[in-house]
């Protein structure tokens, strides 16, 4: 039934007319020719324009791999460095920078391995390079060694105090701002500027060595802030006072006031 209707459609015949395959409609002939020309064009285009090695190994031009193979090699790899500098590579592979490959700091070394004396490799000795990883950035993980390049021993090259092959801080950070720069800078321009960090945070010394294992604590009660801000607190009278019983009694202070910048929104 369906087929009969289809052939009827193709020939334009009425149901009571006989289908004659020689009586093909002019429209169909023209369209067939037009589409045949298009399909032929596509086939010809594919034949002449498609790269010969396309599809041999996947949906790409296989010869591209050979072309890429012929490109000059710039990097040598850590093993090549170890052949001549075993002591440094040995020390480096046990230190905290072990995941940072030699050529990250020294640049591509292939030419150096071919002719070591003619092609000397550079080593970063200025202050510009290390902060690429160690400059303070709030989106870096907590505990990752970060410094403020402006405030941290100005003008001294990093390698004066730090050995990049075996980096250990010469001593533990003295200030909280070494790692918590953003908070320190926020607090520095706030009304709490004169308060020491340790006034509110009880910070064990060990926090400076293993910051994520030993953490400082935070004030957990309303009464802590009340120590300065309650009506009966023994503190200079310029400090704003509140009645601890009635002022936002269901909330903790820092749900509304950011302690590092209390006058902010």
């Amino acid at each position: 039934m369906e087929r009969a209707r289809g052939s009827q459609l193709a020939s334009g015949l009425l149901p009571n007319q006989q289908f004659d395959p020689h009586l093909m409609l002019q429209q169909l002939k023209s369209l067939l020719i037009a589409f045949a020309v298009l399909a032929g064009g596509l086939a010809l285009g594919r034949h002449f324009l498609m790269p010969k090695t396309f599809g041999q190994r996947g949906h790409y031009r296989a010869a591209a791999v050979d072309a890429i193979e012929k490109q000059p090699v710039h990097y040598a790899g850590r093993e090549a460095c170890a052949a001549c500098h075993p002591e440094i590579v040995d020390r480096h592979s046990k230190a905290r920078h072990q995941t940072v490959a030699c050529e990250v700091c020294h640049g591509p070394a292939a030419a150096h391995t071919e002719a070591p004396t003619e092609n000397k490799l550079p080593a970063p000795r200025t202050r510009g390079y290390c902060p690429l990883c160690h400059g303070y950035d709030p989106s870096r993980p907590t505990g990752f060694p970060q410094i403020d390049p402006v405030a941290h021993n100005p003008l001294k090259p990093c390698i004066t105090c730090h050995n990049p092959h075996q980096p250990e801080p010469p001593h533990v950070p003295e200030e909280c701002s070494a790692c918590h720069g953003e908070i320190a800078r926020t607090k520095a321009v706030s009304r709490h500027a004169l308060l020491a960090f340790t006034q509110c945070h009880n910070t064990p010394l060990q926090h400076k060595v293993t910051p994520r294992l030993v953490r400082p604590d935070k004030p957990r009660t309303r009464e802590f802030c009340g120590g300065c801000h309650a009506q009966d607190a023994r503190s200079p009278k310029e400090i704003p006072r509140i009645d601890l019983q009635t002022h936002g009694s269901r909330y903790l202070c820092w749900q509304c006031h950011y302690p590092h910048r209390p006058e902010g929104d």
Partner: protein
Amino acid sequence: MEPLQEVLRQVTGYIYPNEVELHWGLLVVVYPYLTGLVAGAFILASLVRVFNVKEVQPTYRLALLTALAYLIVAPLPLLAHLGRPSRAFEIFLTPNFHSAMAMFGFVYAWYLMVVLLLEIWFDYRKDLVLWSKRETGVRHWLHRLLTLGAGDLSPRALRFDQSAGRFITIIGIPSAFLLHGYVGFIFGSVKANPWWSSVLMPIVFLFSAIVSGIALMLLLYLLSTLLRSKPVDMVCMDKLATFLFYDLVVDFSLEMLDFIHRLYEAEESIQILSLLVSSRLFLSLVILQALLGTVLPLLLLGSVSPALRNRGIVSLPDELRRLLYAGAAVLIQIGIFSTRWNVVIGGQLFSKSLRGLTVYKMQLLGLEGLFVSGFLLVLPLLVLLVLIIVLPPWPEAEQHPEAGAS
């Protein structure tokens, strides 16, 4: 560097370095807008042909030509966006069935060659033959060439034209759905982007496409009729407005469903998306897309058109009514363009860290700039003008075999 610094100053929160600048700009906004108009105009034409909605017959041929004009221009924004547009044809030579983007060339070619051109050809063939017999000079040769040598005007041939046209329209409806559903599919299948990744995306795209297409046809029909100093067929306008209203209701419901679903699901991205909507996209999404582009046209069409009550809830004289229809159609165009903007640009404004927002800095000059995009939005109308000159869609231009043969 300067534009980058300009953008960096407006970045808020934490954002990865490769997210500061948007990779898909205004041109990629224009592209789904144009394909939406193609699909919408074609669906309107299919209302006449397949669903026998006789009232909108006056827009049938104009809708087909409009769909063709917009389809011809639709790939141009993509080509202008490519770094190497001269290599674009290669997707036809080495089809990659695993890539939705690579298959677009074939969806496009199918729609252009098998659906639109064929339907227009079958619909116009009789007229082309009769015009070429009457005319001289360039028009004679042009029309004769367009018949592709098929000059048969026997009743059997004409009957075949009719049934073939109808058959192609039936194929054309799923094809139009495919063409625009595909655009939504591309966005909806970006798993890493919570603003895009939604199964509702293709279907929301599709219904907004139909809304924009019908609104465009309403405008074009009104303008073309007034410019030719012919009486506007208000029955047709009312029917168009009614369909526009119904489709807008479906489109709005789908978008609200998507919205509520996201809110209820409240995935980890909900906070940054709420921030995105209430800050960066407030104007384009809440004001332009939702209020001006959807709610206001819904109120206008719902009260004036015969969609809810036979003579409309507010009965107005024809001139005022069609003016309000045109106003609603313009608002809908602005709204749908904002929809595309909010999807394409909005999806790139927030960081994958879900903790920061960037801004889109639009260029004026250059291939990705405002002027090129503006030109690409006007170009389909110029192409349509040429198509109308070659293939007049007006009823008075239509030929009848008996009259032409004599």
